């Protein structure tokens, strides 16, 4: 058998296939000619390509068939159209006409009857399932209790009661629902409910992934989670307790993911207001402590003033914070003219960049800044490496992250829209195979820099282009050091730290590390041996 791994034609064909490697016309012609005449090469190439595709797909994780799920769950029989819409329209018009009417179990509204009839007629093939019902009430407490503890609820049936608590389980999906009265909902199917009024909490096991809760305003598709939905005549709201859900609008706009801890309101005008949340799903980390120690690397948080009279409208407004600070970086952090129009918060101490920071400016006393133009924390000082040697940074930030050593930028790990990334031309290598916190972009790494026995000056910029929900991670690698690796082979480089974190922060960082390991297959370490020592904190 031919040893293809040493066959240059085979390797060139692979590089052309996988990497679009540029080959001369003559080379392409000769490769195609060989391919036509060599069945062994064709077979080995085909096997290699198939296997590469399969390993890519397998490692990409379980695909979410959102579009397919929508079709499967739409309740639309294969050869009819608009069934679901007709139900939703009836429910909607009912809501508008009788918003003050209180329904009580087992009284059924005409909507429920209509829904039941339509479902019964359109799903005649599921008679057996309908007989068994789609959900079973486990517990019902409170006013208008029917007394039938084991009541079976059928597909299309409306369920309502004035006051109390109901607990039910869906037969096929195993979804567990706890509702609080006053409650009014329709069991659209074994994997879908329409909530018109009240509050329900759902715990969705793996086999129930894809369970849908409809309200007038939105469609909430479970993606393996526990969440609470409330609905009333004014709108609906959702709180994600665990996992994540997809929130779909009642139009063709794409779904939006909400993750653990996120809460949002939806009004009848279909506006969504995110009340609190961690869109990235990354655990939140406390902002730097107020206490500044002699050993602390210190910094200032900077932003634009809210008062536009203090701004040069043409110069500042269109720039944003990262562009405003470009001259500072370009002059090796020497010229600070560009900071003149900015305001700053209290001095802060550096305790690493890791996780999500939702209230960084506020906690650092930068309260009156213009959040639309962003903020940046600038840490600077003289530090000494834990051991002499060559080092390089790894990391990523949403939005801005830059580190300079002795005035020269050695790492830039900002998001795609940062001026640091687009206008400074700093060496950067992207490693999408090493997952970062909240993007498929992956880790970036900087170039090696020398850190000998003496101290080096470090300048570190980290911040946000607008609003909040900032996240980032900054790790450091020492050349030649052996690091423990993750399952996928990513070294667990240590966080770049100048002080060992306090107990509370260690717990937060542990939560972050667990999140990374469980959700994105990344990791990092915290090591006393990797601490950089501060000799001068500002």
């Amino acid at each position, binding site marked *: 058998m031919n040893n293809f791994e040493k066959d240059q034609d085979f390797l060139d064909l692979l*590089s052309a296939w996988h990497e679009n490697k540029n080959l001369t016309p003559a080379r392409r012609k000769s490769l*195609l000619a060989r391919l036509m005449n060599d069945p062994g090469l064709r077979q080995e190439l*085909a096997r290699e390509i198939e296997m590469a*595709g*399969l390993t890519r*797909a397998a490692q990409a994780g379980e695909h979410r068939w959102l579009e397919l799920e929508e079709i499967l769950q739409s309740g639309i029989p294969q050869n009819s159209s608009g069934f679901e819409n007709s139900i939703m329209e009836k429910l909607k018009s009912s809501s508008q006409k009788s918003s003050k009417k209180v329904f009580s179990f087992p009284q059924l509204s005409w909507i429920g009857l209509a829904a039941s009839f339509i479902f019964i007629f359109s799903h005649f093939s599921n008679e057996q*399932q309908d007989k068994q019902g789609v959900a079973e009430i486990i517990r019902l407490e409170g006013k208008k209790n029917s007394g039938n503890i084991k009541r079976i609820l059928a597909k299309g049936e409306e369920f309502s009661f004035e006051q109390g608590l109901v607990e039910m389980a869906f037969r096929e999906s195993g979804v567990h629902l706890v509702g609080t009265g006053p409650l009014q909902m329709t069991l659209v199917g074994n994997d879908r409910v329409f909530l018109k009024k009240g509050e329900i909490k759902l715990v969705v096991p793996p086999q129930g992934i*894809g369970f849908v809760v409809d309200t007038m305003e939105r469609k909430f598709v479970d993606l393996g989670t526990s969440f609470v939905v409330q609905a009333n005549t004014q709108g609906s709201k959702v709180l994600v307790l665990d996992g994540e859900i997809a929130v779909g609008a009642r139009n063709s706009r794409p779904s939006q993911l909400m993750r653990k801890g996120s809460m949002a309101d939806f009004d009848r005008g279909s506006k969504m207001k995110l009340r609190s949340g961690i869109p990235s799903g990354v655990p939140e980390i406390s902002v730097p402590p107020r206490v500044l120690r002699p050993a602390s690397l210190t910094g200032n948080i900077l932003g634009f003033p809210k008062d536009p009279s203090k701004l040069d409208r043409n110069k500042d407004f269109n720039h944003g914070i990262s562009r405003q600070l470009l001259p500072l970086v370009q002059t090796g952090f020497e010229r600070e003219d560009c900071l003149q129009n900015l305001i700053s918060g209290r001095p802060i101490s550096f305790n690493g960049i890791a996780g999500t920071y939702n209230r960084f400016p506020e906690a650092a006393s930068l309260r009156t800044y213009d959040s639309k133009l962003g903020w940046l924390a600038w840490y600077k000082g003289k530090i000494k490496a834990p051991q002499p040697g060559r080092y390089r940074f790894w990391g990523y930030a949403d939005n801005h992250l830059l580190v300079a050593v002795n005035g020269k930028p050695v790492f830039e790990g900002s998001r795609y829209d940062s001026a640091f990334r687009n206008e400074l031309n700093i060496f950067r290598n992207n490693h999408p195979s090493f997952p970062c916190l909240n993007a498929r972009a992956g880790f970036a790494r900087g170039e090696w820099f020398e850190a000998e026995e003496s101290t080096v000056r470090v300048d570190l910029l980290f911040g946000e282009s607008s609003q909040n929900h900032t996240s980032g991670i900054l790790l450091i690698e020492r050349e030649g050091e052996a690091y423990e690796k993750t399952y996928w082979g990513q070294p667990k480089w240590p966080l770049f730290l100048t002080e060992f974190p306090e107990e509370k922060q260690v717990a937060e960082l542990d939560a972050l590390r667990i999140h990374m390991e469980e959700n994105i297959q990344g990791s990092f370490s915290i090591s006393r041996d990797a601490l950089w020592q501060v000799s001068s904190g500002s």
Partner: protein
Amino acid sequence: MPSSSTNFNPDEIVRDVVGGNKDRFRLLVKEYGLLVRGYLSARVYHLEDAEDLAQETFVVTFSKLSSYELGTNFRAWLLSIAKFQLSNHWRKTKGRANTMDKFRHDIADAIQPEMMKASNELEKERIAKLLACISKLPDRTRHLIRAGLDGVRVETLAEEMKVKPNAIYQIRHRAHIALRKCMETNEPTPAT
């Protein structure tokens, strides 16, 4: 991951779905999802495109299910739909294709029968073992296989691993042979 049940009968599921129990279609997706995604990932450069095409394949499969002839080969029928989606994708992107894209299409044309044969060799019971087999690879090889997932360029990988780009393809080729063997025999993958 697909279940490794040898008793899986797609025709039975198709009959149920066509009969109105469309929830059962998820079983087909679960059983053949990785096969279709792998088939498309092998042929499309961007993984996201492959995932979209896989979804479109199952959406079309669902809508055309009543035209599937029971008793024939469901897997082949499904892959023919995936192939049709792929052709459509190539047709749509043809206008943007550069010389090397066209060369890839030429390669694909030249080895089409072999690719189909290679795809057929990957039985679903074996595919189910793939992740377990990957986990048995040495760290360095596993990292390399993982790097292919996000489209890390071979030059970048070669620089990072301090080897020549050709060596990346060689290591990957060896790893794939080891994985195939592991999937067939369920034996530990040899060091690569």
